[in-house]
């Protein structure tokens, strides 16, 4: 019951944020000098075509009216035409979104599993050599931008060692599996096509790793610090004093409270992964929505920009809500406080 009220409240709050965001983006895009109608029609179109187009695009109406039209269209899934691809933006999104989502998914799993494990190992063997090694790696992971990792992985694993492919989602000549989710690896498994699955998997490893490195390192550091902090807490000492074995303390009583700050940050990072993916998509030639968005921004493809921001904004907010729910599940203090204050 509490969870439902919680979700509803967050959802309403988020809608306002999204609306605010959309207004800001829309306003900015319309305030920019330049004639969208002219750009849409092309440099050689006659004046009357452009005028008609301007009327059609409601460019002569006041800003709020324009926004109204834009919003109602958007809610129906119509984001207008992309100037770059010359297609419906919604079509572009449908094509590119799953690619980035798949990338983010794999990156997310790597971040969570490897990050937390490394952090726990580090905390367990605090100040010993393995702790120091992990700490150094984590540190380097945090200070290195993902595109640098992308380049390094590309050079080492892609070219020097030649272990893994470096371009796109599939090798030349391979066809994507029938679309169920748009996620090649999953779709391939669903279709029983192991060859495609394997190929897609090989293509996704390097970019996913590059994308995950920074956050993974951050996870390791936070988990380590959280566990190290909680190690000195009284309740650990009390459990020890009453004879609870060390193993139980480490794996249960220390781990759970330590995960709480970790999960929050993990969620935030994951939410941002889809947005930040372009850094990696550009290097690996990955056809994702993040790269599409960046191109749109560079080319001033207003419809596409607005749509991408909105879509990614929704993802961001949804992930945040999910994370908050998970954290509340983990930490009864938050649940109780939320329930009490109502």
């Amino acid at each position, binding site marked *: 019951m509490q969870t439902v009220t919680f979700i509803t409240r967050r959802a309403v709050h988020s809608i306002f944020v999204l609306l605010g965001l959309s207004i800001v983006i829309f306003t900015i*895009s319309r305030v920019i000098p330049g004639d969208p109608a002219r750009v849409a029609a092309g440099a050689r179109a006659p004046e009357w075509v452009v005028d008609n187009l301007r009327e059609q695009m409601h460019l002569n109406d006041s800003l709020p009216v324009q926004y109204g039209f834009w919003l109602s269209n958007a809610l129906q899934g119509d984001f207008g035409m992309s100037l770059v691809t010359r297609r419906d933006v919604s079509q572009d999104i449908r094509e590119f979104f799953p690619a980035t989502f798949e990338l983010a998914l794999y990156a997310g799993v790597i971040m969570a599993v490897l990050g937390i494990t490394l952090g726990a190992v580090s905390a367990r063997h605090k100040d010993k050599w393995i702790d120091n090694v992990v700490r150094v790696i984590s540190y380097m992971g945090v200070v290195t931008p993902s595109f640098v990792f992308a380049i390094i992985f590309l050079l080492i694993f892609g070219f020097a060692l030649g272990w893994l492919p470096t371009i796109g989602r599939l090798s030349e000549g391979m066809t994507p599996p029938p679309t169920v989710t748009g996620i090649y690896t999953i779709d391939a498994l669903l279709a029983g096509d192991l060859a495609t699955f394997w190929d897609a998997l090989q293509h996704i490893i390097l970019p996913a790793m590059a994308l995950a490195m920074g956050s993974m390192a951050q996870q390791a550091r936070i988990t380590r610090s959280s566990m190290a902090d909680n190690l000195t807490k009284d309740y650990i000492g009390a459990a020890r004093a009453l004879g609870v074995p060390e193993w139980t303390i480490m794996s249960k009583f220390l781990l759970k409270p330590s995960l709480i700050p970790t999960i929050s940050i993990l969620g935030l990072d994951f939410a941002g992964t889809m947005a930040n993916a372009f850094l990696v998509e550009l290097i690996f030639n990955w056809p994702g929505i993040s790269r599409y968005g960046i191109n749109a921004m560079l080319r001033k493809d207003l419809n596409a920009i607005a749509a991408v921001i909105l879509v990614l904004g929704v993802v961001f907010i949804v992930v945040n809500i999910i994370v908050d729910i998970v954290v509340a599940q983990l930490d009864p203090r938050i649940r109780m406080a939320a329930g009490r204050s109502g």
Partner: protein
Amino acid sequence: MAEQAKTLDATAINLETWKKLERRSRRENLGRSWYKFTRNPLSVVGLVTVGLIVFLAVFAPYVTPYPEHAGPFTDFANAKQPPSLEYFFGTDTIGRDVFTRTIFGFRFSLTMGLIVLTLVVPPGVLLGLLAGYFHGTWIDTVVMRVTDIFLAVPPLILALAIAAMLKPNLLNSMMAVSLMWWPWYTRLVYGLATQLRNEYFVKSAETMGASKSHILFKEILPNCVSPIFTKMSLDMGWVILIGSSLSFVGLGVQPPKPGLGTMVAQGARHLPDLWWISVFPALGIVVIVLGFNLLGDGLRDLFAAEEV
């Protein structure tokens, strides 16, 4: 009367001695802080790294072998050279020395950090102070709601969008980054101020009739300086990280200027053959961010230790 005179004299003497003691204790504190700071070798590494980078950036024209290469310059005869004794980091596709350009790139990196911090810290801190001190009033609600909205947006997206709307250059990009950065300072100071305003020294200042600005800036703010300072040095690193990402994408330092991210992007097209064009500027980014991070961590440990 004589009694009064005696007490006045006593106060006068004590004030002088007190000031001397203050100065000495401040020097001791500094000495102790330095000692504590240098106990962790990594912090010293950070300090030295940052110092080196600043030095190189400031004196770039004097410490680099080919300062002209940072500007418009072509030398196709020597283009695409791998690293050698002549060109430490090799040359790029039009013959410019990558080493020199990387060092000049530090200038842009530091500028990024300075721009953002200058734009972000004063308003961010001020808003945090106001919202925190006037906790529970409309000021608090308004400020924190606005902060929430800015924080609810995927960070890089907003910066990118705005940077893209405007003419792509360093200043505009950094302004965009600033727009998404300020809430963190507000949040930080808000948390501190809400706690501090209940402290006795604040309460006593209030009862003595001190003006609001006195309380905000002379009582509360000085106690926030350490966390703010720590965050600033860590942020230098992060801003440079983001700034180089923006340059990489084409929204920061514009070619032919030698921004580090820009250079990585230009070199990316020639991977893996002309790998040095991307790799060395990339390493440059890593070194800068690493340096500021180590420094910031050292400061954080220093201030945390003193809190005890």
